[in-house]
């Protein structure tokens, strides 16, 4: 089948008057590539209103404003060609803007860079903007990080990003980008979602240039005014980098519930020292976009999980970033804006009432036979799921069950699971505790040494989330550590002994027979 874009391109080339420069050819390739791959988001006219624009936040950039987040030029200046090329290659992590590095050819990308500029009358054709001189990173040490922390407080990053950097500062609820859409202050503990890159150089560049079009200011002015030295600004960048894990968490399918040594106390609260011994497992969550009403602007993009047990009881600690404890009147404006602007409108209007933050941990109701499991979205009629539900406006956890979306039911009596939750510094920490075995036949028994399917659902009430509109994960596994069984020490030597004896015996038999046949 013909590629219509290609046909259009060929036709337009054929129709072009002879003798026109390469620029126009580029523009044709730029237009064809743009219409094919970019226009459904950024709009055919580059004004950020493609048909899919309502299904994402932040919205696709409006190129007519010539306002670019990630640049190497001073705040207010246009980006260099190199900057635009970088944006196309790397995309903007944490947003819907994809990375195009291995999808498009070099010629197509170059053509796109030129084409993007034609959307705005701000771009002069003949001069390339001048990048800032950014220098190279200073060394990093405990003192540098402490210095950075001091500056972080002094120049008031916390007002937007919060004391611990989780995007929960006092102005966070009121931030808007230049086109009037609500925008979250970046969660500095998740550097893998930074639009401009995760490294300390990327952070420093963001500080020097600001993210034009967003409320994120630039701090070059502070340097120029002599309020702060370049070293101090690098220290801020090192501090910000230190808020996120050393390495971007990989995805591991299994959460190991550590077996406590004899006499050690099971942690039943989030502030228990014992948690520090256990490494957290990161589980990414994404918007629920599988059944109606869908949700394309999830707040909770991942949870950290730790677990321990002592042979009688199990505790599971789940923590995640959420700027506030919903419902909170400070955020009601944010909430009504988000619910107003997000497409598609599949929810009934009454679902924008005040809503708490919530977490549901899901297990199969019975351990599955073989590889079969309940449908990961709340089970199905043949294979029900068993649920733990926590809500920020209630002190207790509920146990429940479901046989498909919308069939959740929770028990009010005989609760075997207890919960402690706390919100501080833009983070929820919720600990569930339950006996491994219960007398209730609708509760899953936690058997040690078996990989138990487990998944998560989370809601930020003040981000307009409730019901089916929230975030979720697919199935992961919870594995309760077993005491190392004596089998591990005994079986291999026995097997070796048997094999050795057998070998010896066979060789002797054969040798004996050989001798006999030799003699006779």
């Amino acid at each position, binding site marked *: *089948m013909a*590629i*219509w874009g290609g046909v259009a391109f060929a036709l337009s080339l054929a129709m072009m008057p002879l003798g026109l420069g390469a620029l126009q050819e580029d523009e044709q390739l730029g237009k064809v590539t743009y219409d*094919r*791959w970019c226009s*459904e988001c950024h709009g055919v006219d580059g004004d950020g209103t*493609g*048909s*899919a624009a309502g*299904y994402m936040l932040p919205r696709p950039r409006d190129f007519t404003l010539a306002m670019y987040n990630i640049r190497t030029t001073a705040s207010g200046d246009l980006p260099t060609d190199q900057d635009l090329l970088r944006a196309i290659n790397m995309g903007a992590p944490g947003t*819907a803007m*994809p990375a*195009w590095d*291995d*999808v498009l050819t070099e010629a197509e990308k170059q053509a796109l860079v030129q084409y993007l500029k034609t959307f705005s009358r701000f771009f002069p054709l003949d001069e390339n903007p001048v990048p800032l001189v950014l220098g190279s990173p200073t060394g990093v040490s405990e003192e540098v990080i402490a210095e950075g922390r001091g500056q972080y407080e002094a120049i008031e990053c916390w007002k937007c990003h919060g004391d611990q950097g989780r995007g929960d500062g006092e102005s966070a609820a009121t931030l808007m980008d230049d086109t009037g859409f609500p925008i979250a202050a970046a969660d500095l503990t998740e550097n893998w979602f930074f639009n401009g890159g995760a490294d300390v150089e990327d952070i420093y560049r963001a500080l020097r240039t600001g993210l034009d079009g967003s409320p994120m200011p630039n701090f070059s002015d502070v340097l120029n005014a002599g309020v702060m030295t370049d070293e101090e600004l690098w220290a801020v960048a090192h501090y910000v980098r230190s808020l996120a894990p050393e390495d971007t968490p990989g*995805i591991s*399918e*299994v959460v*190991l519930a550590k077996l406590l040594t004899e006499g050690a106390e099971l942690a039943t609260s989030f502030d228990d020292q014992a948690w520090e011994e256990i490494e957290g497992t990161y589980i*990414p969550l*994404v*918007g629920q*976009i*599988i*059944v*109606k009403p869908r949700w394309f602007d999830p707040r909770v993009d991942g949870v950290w999980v730790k677990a321990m047990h002592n042979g009688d009881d199990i505790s599971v600690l789940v923590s995640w970033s959420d700027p506030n404890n919903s419902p909170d009147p400070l955020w009601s404006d944010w909430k009504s804006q988000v619910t107003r602007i997000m497409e*598609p409108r599949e929810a009934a209007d009454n679902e924008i009432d005040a809503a708490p933050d919530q977490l549901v941990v899901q297990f199969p109701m019975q351990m599955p036979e073989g*590889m*079969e*499991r*309940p*449908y*990961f979205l709340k089970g*199905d009629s043949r294979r029900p799921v068993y649920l733990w539900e926590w809500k920020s406006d209630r002190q207790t956890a509920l146990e429940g069950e479901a046989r498909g979306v919308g069939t959740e039911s929770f028990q009010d009596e005989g609760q075997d699971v207890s919960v402690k939750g706390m919100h501080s510094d833009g983070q929820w920490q919720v600990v569930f505790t339950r006996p491994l075995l219960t007398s209730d036949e609708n509760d899953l028994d936690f058997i040690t*040494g078996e*990989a138990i399917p487990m998944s998560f659902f989370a809601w930020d009430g003040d981000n307009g989330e409730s019901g089916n509109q929230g975030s*979720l*994960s*697919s*199935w992961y*596994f919870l*594995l309760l*550590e077993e005491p*190392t*069984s004596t089998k*591990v020490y005994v*079986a*291999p*030597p026995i*097997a*070796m*002994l*048997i*094999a*050795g004896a057998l*070998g*010896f015996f066979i*060789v002797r038999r*054969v*040798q004996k027979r050989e001798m006999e046949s030799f003699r006779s």
Partner: protein
Amino acid sequence: MRKHFSGPLGKSVVILGVAYLLLEFGIAYIPPLFGVDSGPIPDSVLLQYMVTVAIGILLWVSFNETLWEEFKAPLHAAMVEPRQRRTRVALIVLVPVLVGLMTFNSVRPSIAAPPSLRSIHPAPPGQIDFQGRSMELAGVENPLRSVGSPEEHYLEGRRVYYQNCLPCHGDGLAGRGHYAQGFNPGPASFQDVGTIAQLTESYVFWRVAKGGPGLPNEGAPWNSAMPAWEDFLTEDEIWSVILFMYEQAGHEPRTWEEEGEEH
């Protein structure tokens, strides 16, 4: 050295070794070189295959008397020849050590997720129930290819794709949308030669309309995040997005003639 591998015993050992390497590593790492997704096979399946190979070898060497004798000769020699004392001792030590290691491997505690096998393209039903009415699938072509303007269908399909499919399957149609990391198994890549390029459009229609929950058991319906799009899209919208996918990824759908030849 050469002569050790020229007899039937040597050949058997080589065959077993090559089979092991292919099964354990080849299946996981060779297809990706050609852009086809793959992964390691679970140990239990590996064992089954290895036993099959071993039985095959035994059938071959016991096929006639001379071959059998040739096969046994080196074994026999290793057990009785005074000159092969060293080999004998080495075998009596090595074999038990190997057995011990294998036993340890099977009893030591592991924290791996259980294997999950699924058929990526299970056999489609001949007809489906689409939005409450019965719909024939066998032999069906994309009806939009014979009516209206191809460009309009393409644009309509593109809108449907970007509003609905994009978060998972991604702009490049390579299964790398910004929600992809949230799902296991991950979203299909349509750039891959192993997906839509191998399928008829009516097969794709079935997968789109019925989604994960519509898979038969061998497709592991409980894990698939693919929505049942008949709940969101009209029949024309589904056909248009299918048309868009082939066009954008640069693939041709499999025809019913090709499908027929294979059966």
